[in-house]
């Protein structure tokens, strides 16, 4: 009893128990033999497929390519979003313009742009990056803009008082002051683009013999390698968790938490 209580008090252990529980249910269902291995593979064969794809280097290559795509898109998206928002802070007319285009494009799901991307950029990297950038900039603009608007008047005035003006005031006072919002925007942008990436890859496939995780899943399904499909899904989930719980958590700890700008997370 005491042990169980202890296990459930620890957030990590608690989650581990849930995951083990879910996996057991999976294995039990498989062991009934009601479903074909092609539909619902056993945990063992998924594991074998995963290890195999890792040792052969296949998984690394596809993951690296996905990261290569998303990295480029994040780079372009962040620069674009920041330029647009920063200029909005300097010119009210430009702010209206940015607000209008954000209102128009934000509700549009990235995948809905697939046909357009196909027509404009053809099949390949460019189309995927186009869609990813779309899924990155709007939430980032919205959050950064809200953050900029909520900057304390006192801090802005202190900035002006010590001699900061224009874009320098934006980068030196507004950006750090709005950082909690910017971080939220980045998280949404990341998860949006990560999801769009997998979808887009399935449709655009590989270019020049290279493909990302999404493409790999699609290919494996085509050859009815179901365990590999699940192995790839597992990797996608793992990356998502790592980025959100390690990369962003660290970033948050080093910045807004260290600066006392957000309340520390509960255990």
């Amino acid at each position, binding site marked *: 009893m005491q042990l169980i209580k202890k296990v459930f008090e620890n957030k990590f252990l608690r989650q581990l128990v849930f995951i083990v529980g879910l996996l057991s249910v999976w294995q039990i269902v498989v062991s009934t033999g009601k479903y074909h291995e092609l539909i619902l593979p056993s945990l063992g064969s998924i594991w074998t497929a995963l290890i195999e794809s890792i040792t052969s280097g296949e998984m690394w290559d596809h993951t690296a390519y996905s990261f290569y795509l998303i990295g480029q898109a994040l780079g372009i998206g962040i620069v674009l979003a920041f330029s647009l928002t920063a200029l909005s802070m300097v010119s009210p007319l430009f702010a209206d313009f940015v607000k209008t285009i954000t209102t128009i494009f934000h509700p549009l799901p990235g995948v809905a742009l697939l046909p357009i991307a196909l027509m404009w950029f053809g099949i390949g990297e460019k189309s995927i990056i186009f869609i990813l950038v779309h899924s990155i900039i709007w939430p980032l603009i919205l959050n950064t803009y809200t953050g900029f608007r909520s900057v*304390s008047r006192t801090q802005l005035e202190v900035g002006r008082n010590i001699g900061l003006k224009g874009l320098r005031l934006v980068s030196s*006072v507004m950006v*750090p002051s709005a*950082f909690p919002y910017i971080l939220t925007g980045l998280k949404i942008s990341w998860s949006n683009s990560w999801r769009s990436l997998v979808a887009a890859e399935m449709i655009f496939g590989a270019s020049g013999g290279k493909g990302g995780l999404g493409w790999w899943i699609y290919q494996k399904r085509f050859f009815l390698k179901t365990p590999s499909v699940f192995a790839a899904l597992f990797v996608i989930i793992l990356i998502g968790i790592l980025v959100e719980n390690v990369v962003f958590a660290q970033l948050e700890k080093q910045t807004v938490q*260290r600066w006392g700008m957000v309340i520390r997370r509960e255990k």
Partner: protein
Amino acid sequence: MDAKVVIENLWVKFEGEQGNVQALEDISFSVNEGEFLTILGPSGCGKSTLIRVIAGFQSLEKGKIFLGKKQVAEPGPDRIMVFQEFDQLFPWRTVIGNITYALKVNGLDKTKREAKANKYLEMVNLQEFARAFPHQLSGGMKQRAAIARSLALNPEILLMDEPFGSLDAQTRSILQAELVRIWQKVGSTIIFITHNIQEAILLGDRVMVMSSHPGTIKEIVDVEIKRPRLPETPEFMKLWHKLYTLLETKRFGENGRNNVLPGKD
């Protein structure tokens, strides 16, 4: 003595949906080099508006502001403001970082920045907290750090808008004494706003009393009490009552507004 700041026929109006407010009406006064002027007035009489106009944060309807011989309008590091709000330090920089950054913006090189920041941190007794982040400081310490940052910039005038207004009585009186000591040492020119009569007398060479609706200067009173000043002395109490009466008459104001009694906290 030379006038450091001259305000000439200053008018400020706020236009709002509920009608216009004449926040300041025909304000003229000057502050001498090295002088400590306190401004006393009931809430809403336009004290903050006045100091914000001088700092360049608030636009004016008509009038002129001179700093020395030059007319000023835009904000600049020659007039540094210390606010009442505790969030005036940049939370993403350490205490010393807040000071060195302000100096960096003003073109000081690295070794000089560090030395200067340390000097002023020592002056406000915060050297031990140099590497702390603002959220790790108490309210009083934050105000001290803000004062250190302002002094380090070596402004021609220090504009202080109730910097001790949110502090408890004890911390407040410690900081008052420290401010006087620093002012005597550095020789800065200061405009200090308060709605506390005792604070106005303790600090000021002169006390400018304002009245509201519209904000005007009621009287400028010389404080001829030797420093250090003690509130229990008869001359202090006499001046206290004089200022109290000057403020109190406003309670039965011309427009019948029932203003909050100042100076009782």
